[in-house]
Structure formats: structure tokens, C-alpha cells
């Protein structure tokens, strides 16, 4: 058994259609269009039990089956807004093997009766978008896209759409608003995109990695694909490992391998002489785990069982040379900046969390501030249209809970470092800071 998504990944020219075809590319699309019905494709996708690779982990085949049948404009949006801190797997897939994604998209469109497809790629990925544009153009010229694809009577159009820098546009309904030319604010659900999505039409939204798996699922057969990984986390997964490791990079693993083997075996572990203090298992919005949790199998359910999540599959490793207060503050600042401002708990909660963590950092806090941080985080979670606020609250409160002694020690030492300021001065300065912030 060979690797799937990263098969031949570093072969020069793989991004061009000639090389991709020479390696067997588009043969699954040909077979699907000539031999199978859309329902048969859907059945294979459901049998594979592949779960979405973007973060939420919803079964892809099931999602595709939610689209209503019938003759109308239906849409596929490939979510290529990869913005979760620590995640860079989709970038690699689009840069090096764009046709694998495009083939998967066309097969998915056929399965769900979709005629209009878009790739929403984050604006910062300029080179990758250029590569995709060129690849889409090649696919049109070869007749894999457009009208009456390969004489099958199937029509699929595909447009590469570039965003302009907003983390929130990775949230699926914010992505739809952005693609309609609006500010990227999330929508109230229901209605769900399967019923009323892009331009109010039925819409399927999938991550780059999920769609890149489709041609492999069809080649192997859904049941065979489901043999990979664990029972509830099937297949392989691209893991982006970064932070305090010797060999950061993208690794393709079989879901369910011990996390330790990814972090130490593949990524080389932390630099010599350092120990792992904490790690984010699924991007910076995942609650952190500790060194005691390194033997957990790396799959959706094990991560959820440990109170965290697999998320986008981005492991960020923090070693013992790093202050957890710095990590919490940097994490919170990111989500504060990226909050779209629509829902009060997220807009205000992220902002106040940053202010409180800054006080901790500056030696102006007391341990009571830690309780307030936890309380603010509790009040964000589950109270907004989307989970951006949760994405800050979950990791920050996990850090405060799991590393409370370090936070308290930092509060003590940072206060001591400010001495000989007396309490009155501290209070004044605190007030001045508050005023300055408004």
C-alpha cells in the first residue's frame, strides 16, 4: 500500500496536466463518467466514511447526499481558505498537485448533480492560486471541465476565486457571503448550505484535502478506503507539524497512529535538551494537550475524548523554553483581530480576554483575573452564530486550566519585577491602561 495524497508529490511537473495524466490522473473521472451513476459514486463516498478534513470532521458522503435532487443550479465550494494557525497542508496539495483536487471536485459534482464549482482560496496564497488558475485552464482545454464533459452530457464550470485576507472566511457560511461579494459575516443556520447556500441555491462545501481524496476513494473503492485508519476515522490524514520540532512539515499518516510517533518519529521531536510542555493537536483553536497525552491515537474520536479536537490536523508543539502565557496571549490576539464583530460574546469576549492576558503578561494582574478569563471564555462558547469565539475560548481556557501554576507564578514574578511600584501606582497605571485602550 502506497501513500495516497502525497503520491509522487515532489515529482517535477506534477502540477501540469501531462504529468498528472501520465501518472494515471483523470482515469477515475473517465471511468466514473462512463461506467457509474451519480448514486453509485455517492454510495462509494459514503462507504469510505471519510470525514471532512477542514476541521469539523463531518462525513463527506453524507453531506453530499443532503443536496436536493432535481434540475437546478447547484454549487460546490472548495474551501481553500486554509487560515487556521499551524495549518499548511492544503497549500502543499494545491501547489504540487492541483489536478488531484480538480479531478476530485468534478467527480463530486457528478455525484451530487452539481454544475457550478468554485475554489475559494485565501488571498495570501497568490502563487498557489496562479497554479490553480493554470491547472483549471488545462482541464478546460482537455475537456474535463465545461459543457458535455468527455461526451457524458455532464456540465461543470469551475472558477478559482481569491479572498483578500480574513480568517473568518474559512467558516462555511462566511465563505459563501464573501464569495457573493460581501463582508465575510457568518449566517444564521438553518437554513443549511445544502438547502440554501451560495446565491440561495443548494451548496456543498468541502475542504481541499477532503476533495483531493475523492479520486483515490473511487480507485480503491469506498470499503477498501475505510480499511485504512480506525473504524470511525478512516483513511490517511495530512498532518502539518510546526513549532518546537526539529523537522516541521507536512506528513501523511494513517489515522489512529500514536501522536508521539508523529511528533517524535516523523517531526523529530523538540530540539535536543528540551521537553514538550504542551501541544495543539488540531490548529490553534484546539484545546492544548500535555506531554502526558502524547500516546493518544491521532484520530477524531481520541482527540475529542481527550477534550480537544483533531481539527484541521495541525500539530503545534510547545517546548519547555516557551512561556505558556506568551502562547495564550498570542492565540487570543489572533482571534480578537479576526473576529468579524457580528456577535457580541465573540467581539467583546475576545477583546477583553486579550486585555486580561496582557495584564497577566505585564504584571498587573492578580490570580483572580485567571478566574475572570475562564468565566469570559465560558460565556463565549456556544453563544455565537459561528465558532470563532469558541476557537479562542477553548485553547485559552485549556491553557489557564492546565497550566494555572505557571500563570500564577508569572503573575507573581512579573509583579515583583515591576517593584518598587507600590500598590497605588499599580492601580493608577492599570486605570491609565484601561483608559488608553478605549
Amino acid at each position, binding site marked *: 500500500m502506497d501513500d495516497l495524497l502525497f503520491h509522487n508529490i515532489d515529482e517535477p511537473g506534477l502540477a501540469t496536466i501531462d504529468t498528472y495524466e501520465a501518472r494515471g490522473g483523470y482515469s477515475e473521472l473517465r471511468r466514473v463518467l462512463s461506467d457509474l451513476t451519480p448514486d453509485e459514486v455517492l454510495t462509494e463516498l459514503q462507504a469510505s466514511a471519510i470525514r471532512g478534513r477542514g476541521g469539523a470532521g463531518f462525513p463527506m458522503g453524507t453531506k453530499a447526499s443532503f443536496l436536493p435532487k432535481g434540475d437546478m443550479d447547484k454549487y460546490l465550494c472548495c474551501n481553500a481558505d486554509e487560515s487556521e494557525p499551524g495549518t*499548511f497542508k492544503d497549500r502543499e496539495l494545491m501547489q504540487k498537485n492541483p489536478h488531484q483536487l480538480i479531478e476530485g471536485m468534478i467527480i463530486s459534482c457528478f455525484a451530487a448533480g452539481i454544475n457550478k464549482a468554485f475554489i475559494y482560496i485565501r488571498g*495570501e496564497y497568490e502563487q498557489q492560486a496562479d497554479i490553480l488558475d493554470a491547472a483549471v485552464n488545462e482541464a478546460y482545454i482537455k475537456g474535463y471541465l465545461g459543457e458535455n464533459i468527455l461526451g457524458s452530457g455532464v456540465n461543470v464550470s469551475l472558477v478559482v476565486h481569491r479572498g483578500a485576507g480574513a480568517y473568518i472566511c474559512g467558516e462555511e457560511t462566511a465563505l459563501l457571503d*464573501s464569495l457573493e461579494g*460581501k463582508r465575510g459575516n457568518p449566517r444564521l443556520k438553518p437554513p443549511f448550505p445544502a438547502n440554501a447556500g451560495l446565491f440561495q441555491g443548494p451548496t456543498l462545501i468541502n475542504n481541499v484535502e477532503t476533495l483531493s481524496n475523492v479520486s483515490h476513494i473511487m480507485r480503491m473503492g469506498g470499503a477498501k478506503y475505510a480499511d485504512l485508519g480506525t473504524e470511525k476515522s478512516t483513511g490517511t490524514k495530512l498532518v502539518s507539524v510546526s513549532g518546537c520540532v526539529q*523537522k516541521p512539515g507536512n506528513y501523511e499518516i494513517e489515522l489512529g497512529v500514536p501522536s508521539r510517533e508523529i511528533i517524535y518519529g516523523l517531526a523529530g521531536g523538540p530540539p535536543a535538551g528540551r521537553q514538550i510542555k504542551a501541544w495543539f493537536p488540531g490548529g*490553534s483553536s484546539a484545546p492544548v494537550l500535555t506531554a502526558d497525552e502524547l500516546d493518544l491515537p491521532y484520530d477524531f474520536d481520541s482527540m475529542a475524548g481527550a477534550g480537544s479536537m483533531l481539527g484541521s490536523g495541525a500539530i503545534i*508543539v510547545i517546548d519547555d523554553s516557551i512561556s505558556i502565557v506568551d*502562547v495564550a496571549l*498570542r492565540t487570543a490576539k489572533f482571534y480578537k483581530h479576526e473576529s468579524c464583530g457580528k456577535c457580541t460574546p465573540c467581539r467583546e469576549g475576545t477583546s477583553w480576554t486579550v486585555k486580561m492576558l496582557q495584564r497577566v503578561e505585564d504584571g498587573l494582574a492578580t490570580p483572580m483575573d485567571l478566574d475572570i478569563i475562564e468565566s469570559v471564555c465560558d460565556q463565549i462558547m456556544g453563544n455565537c452564530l459561528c465558532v470563532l469565539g469558541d476557537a479562542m475560548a477553548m485553547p485559552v481556557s485549556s491553557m489557564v486550566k492546565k497550566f494555572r501554576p505557571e500563570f500564577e507564578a508569572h503573575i507573581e514574578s512579573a509583579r515583583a519585577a515591576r517593584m518598587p511600584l507600590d500598590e497605588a501606582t499599580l492601580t493608577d497605571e492599570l486605570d491609565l491602561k484601561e483608559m488608553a485602550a478605549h
Partner: protein
Amino acid sequence: MSEHQEAMRFEDAIPQLADVDVPAELKDWIEQRMAMYPDRKSAIIPCLMAAQKLHGWLSPEAVDQVAAVMRLTPARLVSVATFYDMFELEPSGRRTIYMCTNISCMLRGADAVMQELERAVGVTNGGVSDDGIFLRSFECLGACDIAPMASVDGQFVGPLTVDDAKQLVADIRAGGEVLPAKQLSKRPVAVTLWEGGGKVGAYDVSDSASGAA
């Protein structure tokens, strides 16, 4: 409000093509882009970006040009532009450095690199130097495998040392390629791959690790 009602109500606020001097290539580009979507408004973000690339920033003139071709009010376009980090509503530089300062880059020394960039460019975060280099810290650019990293006009470079920061700015000023040895596009995937052969447990770490560069 329906699109028709909106058009009637705000007709006066839409600049007329006859009054706005739109560069021909921009007009063509916008018209082609609008035709790619079921609703032309979907083209707003790409068209604003095209205008920004042409003008260096989203000046009032640039916004008016897009508005005139798209038949939309400048107010609508600006309301969209202000939401997104990559739109510059004030004069910007001709070269742009986004320095990533998010977690993965921070863990590998991004703050020191940013300080050196500020020193070398001669501005603080968000500033434009006299010779037109725009520097700002940016959050997770999606290249943590080369952390700490920066994007120079869309070209990703890393991992950056403090010395690289000096060289990066020198390369920009010299007008040539920026840190050619550190460009992401020239880098292979960092790893060897999964060599499964079956279920969990069949995974051999030593084999996989041995092939990793």
C-alpha cells in the same frame, strides 16, 4: 431591497463611465470577471484587488473606477474592502512585506526577525518607508513549515534568521530576487510519507523517519 430597487435608489451615487477614466485593461478584466459568476457582485473582491494592484492602493479614484464598471456604489465597495486585511485604503508601498508573527512563527523567533525588519526598512509595523517598502506583521500565512517566515509580494520565504531579515530588505532594495535560497516554491515536501501497509500499528517510525530530509 431588491437589486432593481437598490439600483434605482442609489443610481445617483454610481459614478458614470463617461466621467471616470478607467484604464482599458482594468475595464476588460472587470467585465470578464463579472461574466464568470451568476451574480456580478461576486466579482467585487477580485476586481478591487485588480484595481489595488494597478494603483498600489485602493485610492478613491481606484474605487470609482471599479464602481463605474461594475455599476455599484463606491460606498458598497469600500464597505467590503474595509473587512479584509489585504486591502489598503491608505497609500501603501510598491513592495510589500508581510511578516508572520503568529504562534508557530513566534515559537521559532519571529519577533526578533520582525524587529530587525523594522530596523532595516526603517519603519514600525504598518509603516511605509520613503523608498516604498510596506511592512506589517501578519497572522498565520500558512507556511509554518518554514517558520519564521514572511511573504514578500506573495513570495513566501523562510525560515528566516535575523541576518536573513537584513538580506531580505537589501534584496528588495537591489531590485532582484528576494532570498532565492529560502523561497518556499523551490522546496520539496519536507518529509517522507506514510508507509502503512495496513492498520494502525503497522506503521514503522524508524523507516519513515530515515527518509526525511
